């Protein structure tokens, strides 16, 4: 029996060693963006995390079909996992097994940066320049996809602006005005609560919406660099900008800004609270324009809905026209499977994509096309689109794409406790600074 066990242990170790060797397989040169040779049509795959029936997927399907007409044998296999946490797990597992498909979605996360460092992704800036498309893109859309060192490995397919939507009638009922400063919000919540109104509807289940709030104060007080330093342990929650956000989050909680039991409520629960006129404010991006700024919106609140952009604070280092303006999850190109076919298809698709995308009423990541306002839109739709033209240079990055995954998970958990009043700001600060100290070195060597 002992012998058998030993043999099994050795077999297990050997199998592991073998897979580990397989994982390190060298990729082709990631900076070679124009591979030479014959275009041999085959099926390629895109692992993505976008709504199954959304504009991006529908358009890319159509473009792939068009391309296949000229190149018989070509097919684009779209494998989507819209639920982001599940998607990230899938991606990371495939990356560990060295089985990434030709194209895959990722944010500019520390994990993606490690993939890039290992040469597994094609350099996107060189790729776009070789296709003569680089200058078409909004600088902000590309910046959102960049890693901290400025390198670009992902191609954006969207451009979104995040606003705080509000219900004018409810604010009036509570006798409050649109906040001039972030610091006005807690008092505003108290007034709304006293009038029997839920101040802010939030999707607590998905955790990223609450994490947006923690990014706001430091972005105003210290600019976009704060989170980049924080994640590496060069800045801390105990710093002035960090303390400001910790205290502010605790105040939001104390003023009961979010609906009761928010941590167990989902995306549509939160949106329903806002669109049914129960909640006064709702923080969401332009991807929800079709439901918030068209005749699909509940007629009872349709005339009362408006939005404001992220308020500034006194002493703010970023301007009012600088806020969260993400270009969505980006598409990376696998350098190992990059060949004349993938290159040729991307050239075909990326040139035609912006016009098709803008026709659906969405903001294109490029400046070359004008977005079509849908026929059933309310005046708010146009106002939202026009805000994109006056954007400033800096943008607030969502923290969930910045922090290492372990710290990020801990932050999401601790934030709920802080806002619910289960822990004090001091406990929060200590827990999070310790978590960063422990986890950051592994990811940002």
């Amino acid at each position: 029996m002992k012998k058998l066990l030993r043999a099994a242990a050795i077999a297990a170790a050997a199998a592991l060693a073998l897979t580990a060797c397989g994982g390190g397989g060298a990729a082709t040169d990631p900076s070679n963006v124009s591979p030479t040779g014959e275009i041999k049509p085959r099926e390629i795959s895109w692992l993505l995390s976008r709504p199954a029936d959304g504009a991006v997927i529908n358009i890319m399907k159509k473009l792939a079909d068009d391309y296949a007409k000229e190149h018989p044998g070509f097919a684009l296999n779209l494998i989507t996992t819209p639920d982001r946490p599940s998607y990230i797990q899938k991606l990371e597992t495939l990356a560990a097994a060295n089985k990434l498909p030709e194209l895959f979605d990722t944010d500019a996360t520390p994990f993606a940066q490690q993939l890039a460092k290992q040469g597994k992704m094609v350099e996107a800036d060189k790729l776009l320049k070789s296709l003569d498309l680089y200058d078409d893109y909004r600088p902000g859309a590309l910046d959102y996809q960049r890693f901290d060192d400025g390198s670009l490995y992902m191609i954006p397919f969207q451009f979104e602006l995040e606003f705080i939507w509000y219900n004018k009638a409810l604010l009036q009922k509570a006798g409050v005005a649109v906040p001039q400063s972030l610091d006005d919000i807690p008092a505003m919540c108290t007034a709304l609560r006293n009038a029997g109104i839920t101040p802010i509807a939030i999707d607590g289940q998905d955790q990223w919406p609450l994490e947006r709030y923690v990014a706001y104060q430091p972005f105003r007080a210290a600019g976009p660099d704060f989170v980049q330093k924080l994640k590496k342990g060069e800045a801390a929650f105990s710093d002035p900008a960090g303390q400001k956000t910790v205290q502010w989050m605790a105040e939001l909680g104390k003023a009961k800004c979010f609906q009761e039991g928010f941590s167990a409520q989902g995306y549509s629960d939160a949106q329903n609270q806002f669109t049914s006129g129960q909640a006064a404010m709702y923080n969401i991006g332009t991807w929800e324009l079709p439901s918030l700024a068209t005749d699909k919106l509940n007629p009872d609140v349709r005339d009362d809905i408006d939005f404001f952009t992220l308020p500034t604070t006194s002493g703010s280092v970023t301007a009012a026209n600088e806020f969260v303006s993400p270009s969505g999850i980006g598409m990376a190109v696998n350098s190992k499977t990059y060949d004349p076919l993938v290159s040729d298809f991307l050239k075909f698709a990326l040139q035609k994509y912006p016009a098709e995308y803008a026709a659906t009423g969405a903001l294109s990541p490029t400046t070359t096309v004008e977005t079509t306002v849908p026929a059933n839109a309310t005046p708010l739709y146009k106002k939202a689109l026009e805000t994109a033209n006056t954007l400033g240079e800096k943008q607030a990055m969502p923290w969930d794409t910045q922090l290492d995954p372990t710290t990020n998970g801990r932050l999401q958990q601790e934030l709920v406790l802080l806002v619910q009043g289960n822990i004090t700001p001091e406990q929060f600060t200590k827990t999070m600074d310790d978590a960063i100290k422990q986890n950051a070195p592994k990811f940002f060597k």
Partner: protein
Amino acid sequence: MLPNRSRTSVLVFLLPPLLLYCAAVLFPILQSLVLSFFSWNGISDMEFVGLANYVRMLTADDIFWRSFFNALIYLAICLVLQLGGALVVASLLTSLSRGRELIKTLYLLPAVISTVAIAFLFVRIYSIDPVGLLNQLLHWVGLGSLERAWLSDVNTVLAAVSAPEGWRFTGLYMLIIYAALIAVPKELEEAAVLDGASKWTLFTKIRFPYIRPVWITTTIMATTYGLRGFDIPYLMTNGGPGQSSELLTTYMYKTAFTSTDFGYASTISVFIVIECLIAVGLILFMLKRKAD
């Protein structure tokens, strides 16, 4: 028994399932054991770290201990609901003369509903805004002061995620125990009743000793299922708020697939294996000793 049973024929029949078992169960456990001595994030080179993962788990990880104790409470609630509930319902069923089949079916129903559906169902039941079933019931019976967001309150969330799991399998264990109870020889019970035994004595001295082997099996089943509980807490709260409903299993899953710390996640999984083995050992020890 077969008349000409030879060693070879026994081996021939036992070997394929044994090999399958080794490939499907023992090999992954051994692989986890090996991985637990490494630091590996899936795409980096594997680095041998010796016992560092174990030291970190046992001495420096507050979430690990929190989830361990949460898992024990989760287990306790599941066992009380599943075994206690099953025993009570099964005993009552034996004294029922009509409608047994209907009640058995009704109790078994939750065991055949998909976990995801159960999780969503209970999220609605516990909800406060819009008011869910539980809070509405409390309101109607005049216990309005107890209304709360059950899944957001750090004091109630663990019990709230344990209850659906317990509720779900009560019917299954009830069925097993019921089958054992109706196998208790009627002569024994009648003799005891003639001797003047009360219902309680009848149960403790005759029925329960008679079903003890079945009880041991059900306890082991319920305990190991409880220790491996994952899906309902993961779907309902994802371990939150904070770590209030984090179990060892959900923590292990997050460590592996969110933090991509496969070495450390393997360390936790080795702990879960050992924990299950100890639990089974304890149950066998306690119940066997009582029987002797």
